[in-house]
């Protein structure tokens, strides 16, 4: 036979009782590389063939436990660490509510691992080019016969002796099985390289098309084309093309009650400060003062601008004039502006304006403290330290 190698010798038998006997005798004769092929699993054959019990269960166990662990940890991480959210008053790690998903993931992973592990690792499948395929032997054991094949790789294999041995078992028939010597497939074969190139081209082309073209076509562009106003784009809804609308005349936004003395440089009617000087109020005032006032007036109201002459420096807030201002006057200056100072009304709501006024009062008192103030502060310090 040209270019063929012997795979093994096969024999067919016709009853399950017989094949058990055959398997037992073959194993006892010292053969190890032999196989029994039957159309369905025969009870007790693995004992007769002296096979070790299947170790498949270990794959199932390992992957099943991995599945439970991954699921539980993932749910713990998402629901308690990455984005903790209280749902129906349950704790972040709501174990009873995590059981169903843990179970499902365990089953899924264990099942898939068992099957994929069995097919690839235990069977070495897919293998449609095994020498036994397309032989008469295979066709018979696929249907209703029971076969034995002793492979040539067995250490006791000698063609004539094996044939003699098989003959002694009273088979229906004996068949020698050959296979074609494997062709030497070089990786650098032009056809293979062309295939690689085509695969690369198709993959990259498809990816490019999907990511850069397809996703911008209807209906996949539903995220980007929406009936809303996009910044810097004219509105199609209003005839003037603006998306932002001016409020209806007479509308008053919350916290922005219109100021009656607006535009009047020296109002006679000044508002009374409606806010008590509380710690919270001072905190708001400090934060707003530091944001809006301090760039020009300085952090402590000394008129030491941080703007390096880009804007005229205002006078100090600690002058006699400023200290003698009524609360309402400072409020008026904030809302109305004064000289080159613009109105800060749009940036501060009513409470914040008064809070700033209060904070300026704090600064003024601190910078121009009397002896009794210092004594009081010292007393307070001692009291705090002893606490």
């Amino acid at each position, binding site marked *: 036979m040209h270019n063929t190698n012997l795979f093994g010798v096969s024999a067919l038998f016709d009853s399950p009782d017989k094949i058990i006997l055959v398997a037992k005798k073959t194993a006892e004769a010292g053969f190890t590389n032999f196989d029994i092929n039957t159309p369905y699993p025969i009870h007790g054959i693995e004992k007769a063939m002296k096979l070790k019990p299947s170790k498949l269960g270990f794959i199932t166990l390992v992957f099943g436990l991995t599945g439970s662990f991954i699921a539980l940890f993932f749910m713990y991480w998402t629901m308690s660490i990455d984005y903790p959210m209280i749902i129906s008053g349950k704790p972040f790690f709501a174990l009873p509510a995590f059981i169903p998903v843990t179970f499902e993931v365990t089953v899924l992973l264990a099942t898939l691992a068992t099957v994929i592990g069995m097919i690839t690792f235990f069977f070495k499948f897919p293998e449609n080019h095994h020498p036994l395929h397309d032989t008469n032997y295979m066709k018979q054991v696929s*249907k209703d016969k029971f076969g034995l094949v002793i492979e040539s790789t067995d250490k006791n294999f000698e063609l004539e002796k094996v044939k003699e041995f098989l003959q002694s078992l009273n088979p229906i028939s004996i068949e020698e099985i050959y296979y074609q010597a494997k062709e030497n497939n070089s990786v650098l074969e032009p056809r293979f390289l062309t295939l690689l190139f085509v695969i690369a081209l198709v993959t990259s082309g498809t990816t490019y098309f999907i990511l850069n073209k397809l996703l911008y076509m209807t209906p996949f562009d539903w995220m980007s084309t929406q009936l809303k106003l996009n910044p810097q784009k004219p509105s199609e809804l209003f005839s003037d093309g603006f998306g932002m609308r001016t409020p209806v005349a007479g509308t008053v936004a919350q916290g922005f009650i219109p100021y009656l003395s607006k535009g009047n440089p020296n109002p006679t009617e000044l508002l009374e400060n409606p806010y008590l000087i509380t710690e919270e109020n001072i905190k708001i005032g400090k934060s707003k003062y530091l944001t809006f006032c301090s760039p020009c007036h300085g952090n402590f109201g000394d008129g030491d601008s941080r703007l390096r002459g880009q804007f005229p420096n205002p006078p100090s807030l600690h002058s006699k004039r400023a200290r003698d201002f009524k609360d309402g006057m400072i409020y008026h200056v904030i809302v109305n502006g004064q000289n080159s100072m613009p109105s800060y009304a749009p940036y501060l709501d009513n409470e914040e304006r008064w809070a700033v006024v209060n904070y300026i009062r704090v600064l003024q008192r601190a910078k121009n403290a009397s002896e009794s103030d210092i004594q009081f502060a010292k007393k307070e310090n001692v009291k705090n330290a002893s606490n």
Partner: protein
Amino acid sequence: MNIDYSQEAPAVAGRLTLAEIEELVAKPLDSRPDKKYFIALSISGGALMIGAVCLAISFYYGLGLWGNNQPIGWAFDIVNFVFWVGIGHAGTLISAILFLLRQKWRTGIARFAEAMTIFAVICAGIFPAIHTGRPWLDGYLLPYPNQHHLWVNFTSPLLWDVFAVSTYFTVSLVFWYIGLIPDFATLRDRTSSKIKKTIYSLFSLGWRHSSRHWQHYEKAYMLLAGFATPLVLSVHTIVSFDFAVSILPGWHTTIFPPYFVAGAIFSGFAMVVTVLVFVRKIFNLENIITMDHLDKMNKVILATGMMVGYAYGMEFFIAWYSGVQAEQFVFVNRAFGPYAWAYWIMVSCNVIFPQLFWVRKFRRSIPVMMVIVILVNVGMWFERFVITVTSLHRDFLPSSWAYYTPTLYDFGILIGSFGLFFTLVILFTKSLPVVSISEVKAVAEGAQPSHHGGVANA
């Protein structure tokens, strides 16, 4: 009548040889489909098209075309979902639970029942997907890392459903395919057509019927059966949680999980019997799917039907015993309110008619069996309708009470799901062996070594 109960009835009747079994099962795959096949296919395909059109219109105009509205926010979509998932459960019960219980008679019907599981779960899966109204956004149901750093709510039964149904589908499919591998190999070795051989070779993965492989294969089959058993129970339990975890009277009951599982097996067996009666006749499989098998399935239907009946009674008892007024109102309203007609259809189809199966003659009579199992199918669909709609339609605020009427689109989509199911079943009968060849061969008479012969005699 003298029946010898000490001897189990043979799993395969008529003393068929192994080759005859194979011939019988593989014959439909070798011949071209006849006219009747195409007539059946066009009827089921037509139903499928009706569903497809109704769905397309529903998506174009929006789900307002369906009948559900406040306070009946859940209606046909969830009813059909639960109905179809339930149908699927019989397949897994037959293939996994009866396998673990070493019931040989399961071999003749397991393949078909598993196929029905897969098709039923496909039908079921459609409804949660479409009821969102924008099914192309259903990807958000899965936990994936996104720009918003948002995750799905793992404490919600609706999310458990996503995991349960998708796991159930995957595991059933894998289980089914594992069972098919040796059959693909057998078909590969008997066909003379080159195209068929290529396809069968591809799917058989190169199976060689090797005993070294059978050993792992049987182990894997056992492991999978071991997993599928709790899985099937968990799936309908989780489905029942969709209702039971809410605090609505009529839904908020601890009996739901076992009650739903029993109902699922009940309806699933009824569907399997409905289809198998036709299949065994059309494909001459009377010796493989024997009257004894149908008899046993009818016994299961009788048993699970009574469990369901017990649950109906227990719901009323607990409503009375709990002393919760709202609960009592819901159940009295269920039986005597505007949906009394649905309730009594359910009770008579599920509890009263199956009682006929106490009589051996009825269990073994095809016409009687057909009528009862179809009534059970109807009854079980109505059970889900009653649970869903009657609990919702009169809520705590009498001013919002309403009467739910499904629209044509609801019915169209329901018909479409039946069309999809039967189209898949019909295609399956002509493209794959409807009975597991290798499993049936293994339980045929004389297929296994005798206890006194074989090794012992050697």
